[in-house]
């Protein structure tokens, strides 16, 4: 009760105060402050997870780092705020964070009624089911009557209800606030099934005591495009976050990597010259230094590198590129041209 009262007071005062200050531009604030405040998860390996020393890594974290590299010239100047699903939008609305990069599904309701804007898609996902092998279940159609653990405040809750209704099946939703509690519920046997976006299921599975006792069902019951979001009303900041992500995706398509970016600086290819800020609009449109995209690739790497390092071949998760491959390779990752 105390917590709600406080969050209520916080939202109201934040809205109240900010009414009277002229809305400061987020980019200027970040530069003045000297670091970016980025909202992430409380710990999903591969997406946003603190290591033993408290340093954050992951695909979502790399998006924060890219924005910091573009704005501040230094990818390490980020302060991470761990948020559970229920807290995330309030944190963004009230200005506690400059951007949200936390396995968040891009939906109509969120984009149009929360006062936020989605700046692209970092990971195309879908909702899946993780079940104990002991149950002997082969696919989701056999889940009638199952007790299912879910995290509160997610798209997952709604997809699940829709799926079971469509298939005329029943289920018992056990809803927890944190992913840790949800995972514990599955391990202890409180629920038969854990459901969430597949990416997070892969990630949570490696956190379980005996990951091999659990299998992923083949069914995917929803579309979950996960991406970063910013507050509505600051178009320049929206563009910066959007194009930081596009720059990473574009770099992969153009074959620019953190390893070859220095050679690329001297390339005579017109497209690459525009990318590294030698030609074209450079940093002017976004109000950033001309080397903004170069810094992202140098310090963070292109989309493919980030993917492999955090969730793909080079990580414990070993997730296939699938939908997240470049459009030329049959995937959905497609960046508008940087012309």
């Amino acid at each position: 009760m105390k917590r709600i009262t406080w969050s209520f007071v916080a939202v109201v005062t934040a809205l109240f105060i900010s009414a009277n200050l002229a809305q400061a531009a987020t980019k200027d604030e970040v530069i003045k402050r000297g670091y970016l405040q980025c909202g992430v998860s409380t710990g999903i390996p591969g997406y946003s997870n603190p290591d033993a020393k408290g340093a954050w890594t992951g695909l979502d974290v790399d998006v924060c780092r890219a924005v910091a590299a573009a704005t501040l010239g230094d990818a390490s100047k980020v302060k991470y705020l761990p948020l559970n699903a229920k807290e995330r939008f309030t944190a963004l609305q009230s200005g506690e964070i400059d951007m949200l990069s936390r396995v968040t599904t891009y939906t109509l309701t969120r984009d149009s009624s929360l006062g936020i804007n989605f700046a692209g898609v970092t990971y195309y996902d879908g909702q899946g089911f993780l079940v104990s092998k002991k149950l002997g279940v082969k696919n989701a159609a056999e889940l009638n009557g199952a007790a299912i653990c879910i995290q509160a405040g997610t798209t997952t809750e709604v997809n699940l209800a829709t799926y079971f209704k469509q298939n005329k099946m029943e289920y018992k939703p056990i809803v927890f606030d944190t992913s840790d509690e949800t995972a514990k519920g599955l391990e202890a046997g409180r629920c038969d099934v854990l459901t969430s976006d597949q990416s997070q299921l892969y990630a949570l599975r490696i956190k379980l005591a005996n990951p091999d006792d659990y299998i992923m069902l083949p069914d995917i019951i929803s579309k979950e495009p996960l991406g970063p979001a910013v507050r509505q009303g600051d178009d320049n900041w929206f563009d910066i976050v959007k194009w930081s992500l596009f720059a990473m995706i574009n770099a992969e398509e153009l074959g620019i990597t953190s390893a070859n970016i220095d050679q690329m600086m001297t390339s005579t290819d017109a497209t690459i010259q525009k990318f590294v800020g030698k030609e074209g609009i450079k940093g002017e449109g976004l109000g950033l230094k001309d080397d903004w995209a170069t810094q992202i690739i140098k310090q963070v790497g292109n989309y493919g590198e980030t993917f492999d390092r955090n969730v793909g071949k080079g990580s414990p998760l070993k997730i296939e590129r699938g939908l997240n491959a470049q459009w030329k390779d049959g995937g959905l990752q497609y960046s508008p041209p940087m012309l």
Partner: protein
Amino acid sequence: MSTQKKKHSLLNNAFFREIFFQVLLVTVILLFFWFIAHNTMANLDKRGIATGFKFMSQASGFGIIQHLVPYDETYSFGWTFVVGLLNTILVSGVGVILATLIGFTVGVARLSSNWLIAKIATTYVEIFRNIPLLLQIFFWYAICRSLPSPRLSWSFEDIIFLNIRGGYVPKPIFEEGFSWVIWAAILAIALTLCIRYWAKKRQDATGQQFLVLPVGIGLIFGLPVLAFLVTGSPLGWDLPTLQGFNFKGGMTIIPEFAALLIALSIYTGAFIAEAVRSGILAVSKGQTEAAASLGLHKSKILRLVTIPQAMRVVIPQLTSQYLNLTKNSSLATAIGYPDLVSVFSGTTLNQTGQAIEIVGMTMLVYLFISLTISFFMNWYNKKMMLVER
């Protein structure tokens, strides 16, 4: 005084000043709230955040594990408010009853002349009063979670089952004619009340006593049983049975409810025990001795002399404990019990994003429940006060 009378300025008139400043204060406060409300709405609008209560009639689209009224994902967001509220009332209501029972028992036990009983009661109070409630909730939940899986359930005569998914008990099915049993019970209660009234009148007039208690118990149990037999046992049971993953049929007590209820009752019970002890200690020894010298029996002294006086000290504290229990029940969300905060301020808020409206409504509900409890307890307190002659 005389100088005041000379100056006929309105500002120096005490009555006028009193009214004037009160009106001024109220106006300023109202203006302040209007300003905040207006400002907030304007800002929400400017930032593209939806406002208003239209969401209340939209379909919720999510499931809730425990609902005392019909509910599924096709019902509205407004209805999730009712479902959550009833779940809050259920756990708080049962919690208040259990905590009171525990509190009175332990409070009296602490004053027992039996050393062991008194020590056990003291230890109980000291332990449960001093451990944070949230930890206690997690503790009981961990215990619920260590129960066996559905297939290995503990069972009692194959009618009651206990496993990690909860407790499964037979569900009564009322068949035609059962209403007679209920009417019989109501009749029995009314009869008992009449007999009590008559007995009191007679005692006042003649001094003769009548044993109301055994007669009352006989009536209240006897009449309904008679009606039950006469109407041909109109009651069936829906037994829980294992089917697939889980038990089907019967009634389920989910572990989240059990853990929360146990934690709330035991924690609040410890505080109530202290209130009861202090209440009893507040009744002076002279009272008991005087009653004893009148030849009253020990149990009558407790019932007629000690308890009524102790209650005056206990009730105000009891009120605040009941309020605490109700408010503390919102910790439910930590273990996923679908109370008002978890369902409405949690999921519904997140699906609609309308924080101000939803949190505002939730806060009003707690305010309303608190005021109702205080109102009722104040009324009860007044009634107890009147016993003073």
